[in-house]
């Protein structure tokens, strides 16, 4: 297949339909060819036109193909998504980061939230993995963070009936799945839309924990992505209580500066976040904590960024997904000037990454000599090694060519530590219940 056919195939598989003209499209992309300048000139002409269209319609643009570094830098500012052809399988995920999971949310035909979500829940799950599964439990967002388009593309928060979720958890656990991740844009806001007619998120977790005890097979349940505003001590107490509830918490900070948090419309202060972190550390001391941070948000000053660096130092995350701010079409902040230069964003990104690695390295080193449980997930890039995740989702590899271990929980003795990964030695394979 040609590159363009491969792109079409991926988009079709993601549920998109080809239209006859660019005027009708909600997603438009170019596979560029840098051999001739004329072709590249045409790309600039096209994207300039499409960006004008964005004022009047929902439109996401992408570019891939053969792109010279100088053009790539310019395209980063012009296109919503830029990817290399080997990254093509990630395209639906990249589109998803713009708040799109299916073509309905791109439609110019108004759909009621309940119609849209019915279709969403009714998608027959197809689990790509035989040991890792994802269960959508909640959709939409009421938070309206200014950097995010999700509230406009996904609508308000809607919770899936708990009976369906619990049935799916039980079925997967009985089939031997090793990790189950509960998904939602505001996963811990689960149930709040039902005015007491549905269980709350802590109650849902409690029921999942009880399933874990009934099934008597080892598996770990995670959830993502939560919002700090709705994170409560109850949630932490329940996670601490049940073995099957993964001791890994994702708690997006986004910024460590109060004023940036206000501008982001995050609905929580740094003080509230700090208090949540203190509870988390006290109730589940062994938990690993991941976060999301945006650097270079509109008008972020050096001083405000420094507050984020200090927060990173204070909260000692095990992993942080650090993003350089780029305006998302449809988000409120898209209407603001993207005022922080790319150079400053890169600088801040590097500083935060360095700060993160100081703690991760220290933490990882502290695990050397410990025997820990690991879900073996795949062949490692290093020949003769397999890699997996700890229950706290830390990456670890070990020497083995036994492919039968993939999908199993095994015990490893940690022998070496790097900034963002561990190395271990196989102690014993878990005996399946």
């Amino acid at each position, binding site marked *: 297949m040609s590159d363009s056919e491969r792109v079409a195939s991926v988009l079709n598989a993601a549920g998109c339909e080809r239209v006859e003209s660019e005027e009708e499209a909600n997603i438009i992309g170019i596979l560029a060819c840098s051999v001739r300048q004329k072709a590249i000139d045409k790309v600039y002409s096209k994207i300039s036109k499409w960006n004008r269209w964005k*004022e*009047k*319609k*929902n439109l996401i643009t992408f570019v891939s193909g053969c792109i010279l570094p100088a053009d790539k830098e310019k395209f980063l500012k012009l296109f919503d998504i830029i990817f290399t052809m080997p990254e093509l399988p990630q395209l639906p995920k990249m589109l998803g980061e713009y708040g799109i999971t299916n073509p309905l949310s791109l439609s*110019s035909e*108004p759909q*009621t939230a309940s*119609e849209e979500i019915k279709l969403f829940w009714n998608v027959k799950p197809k689990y790509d993995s035989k040991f890792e599964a994802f269960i959508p439990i909640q959709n939409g967002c*009421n938070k*309206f963070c*200014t950097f995010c388009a999700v509230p*406009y593309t996904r*609508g*308000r*928060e809607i919770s899936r009936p708990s009976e369906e979720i619990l049935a799916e958890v039980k079925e997967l656990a009985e089939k031997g799945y090793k990790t189950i991740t509960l998904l939602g844009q505001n996963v811990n806001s689960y149930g709040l839309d039902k005015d007491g007619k549905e269980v709350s998120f802590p109650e849902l977790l409690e029921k999942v924990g009880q399933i874990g005890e009934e099934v008597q097979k080892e598996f770990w349940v995670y959830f993502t992505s939560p919002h700090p*505003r709705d994170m409560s001590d109850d949630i932490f107490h329940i996670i601490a209580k049940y073995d099957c509830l993964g001791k890994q918490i994702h708690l997006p900070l986004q910024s460590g500066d*109060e*004023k940036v948090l*206000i*501008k982001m*419309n995050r*609905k929580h*202060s740094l*003080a*509230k976040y700090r208090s949540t972190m203190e509870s988390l550390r006290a109730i589940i001391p062994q938990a690993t904590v991941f976060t999301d941070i945006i650097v270079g948000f509109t008008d972020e000053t050096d001083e405000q960024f420094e507050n984020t660096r200090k927060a990173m130092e204070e909260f000692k995350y095990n992993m942080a997904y650090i993003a350089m701010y780029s305006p998302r079409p449809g988000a*409120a*902040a898209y*209407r*603001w000037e993207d005022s922080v230069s790319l150079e400053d964003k890169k600088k801040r990104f590097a500083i935060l990454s360095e700060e993160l690695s100081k703690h991760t390295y220290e933490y990882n080193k502290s695990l050397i000599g410990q025997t820990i449980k690991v879900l073996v997930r795949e062949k490692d890039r290093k020949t003769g090694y397999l890699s997996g995740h700890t229950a706290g989702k830390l990456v670890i590899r070990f020497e083995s060519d036994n492919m039968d271990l993939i999908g199993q929980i095994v015990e490893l003795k940690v022998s070496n530590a790097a900034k963002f990964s561990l190395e271990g030695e196989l102690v014993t394979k878990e005996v399946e219940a």
Partner: protein
Amino acid sequence: MKNNRNRLNLHEILEVRHLTDSTFVIRFEKNDLNFTAGQHVCVGPPNGIHTREYSIYSAVEDPYIEILVKEVENGLITPVLKKLKAGDSVVVEEPVGYFSLNEKEKLNKKYLFIATGTGISPFHCMVKSNPDLKYEIIHGVRTAEEGYERTEYTQKRYTLCSSRDKSGDYAGRLTNYLQEIQIDKDSEVYLCGNCNMIHDAYDILENKGIPNEQIHAEVYF
């Protein structure tokens, strides 16, 4: 037909009140929407796909919903909304938001509401929904005509700061006024309006010793 309107979240406009050349109140059918004072709704023209968030201006118990809108020059939504009239429809999504009073404590607390421009909207709703509320409003505007429907508030509780004319209660910027006054440290302070004002006011309040957890902010953009 009615079902189809519900499906598309269409609400009939009952009245449009033009308060200035650029600012107006749209009153539309409430239908089955319920809300808490301070929450917002997404509203847009009936045939478009875009909506914007507007704090609810009317009281919780009113049999209709009102929003206070300022026309944005070359905007995508507000110029269209401005042309609508009674009998037309708007798309309205269900009310959401967290910029609300603590229901259990609201009658025991003292509130300081600080707004710029149409940021007065949630405070209008809170005051009209809670007649016994102990509140003070500081409203920053450019000219006094932007003191939208100010007679709706108890006059001694409302201070209009006008930065570009002298016809407000205070001639100057809201933040200058805030620097000059004493603020009860037990007050719950709510800020609503443009981000720069909120940032400046936040610093002033912090310097005056108001604890962070008593400061609540809703940015208009």
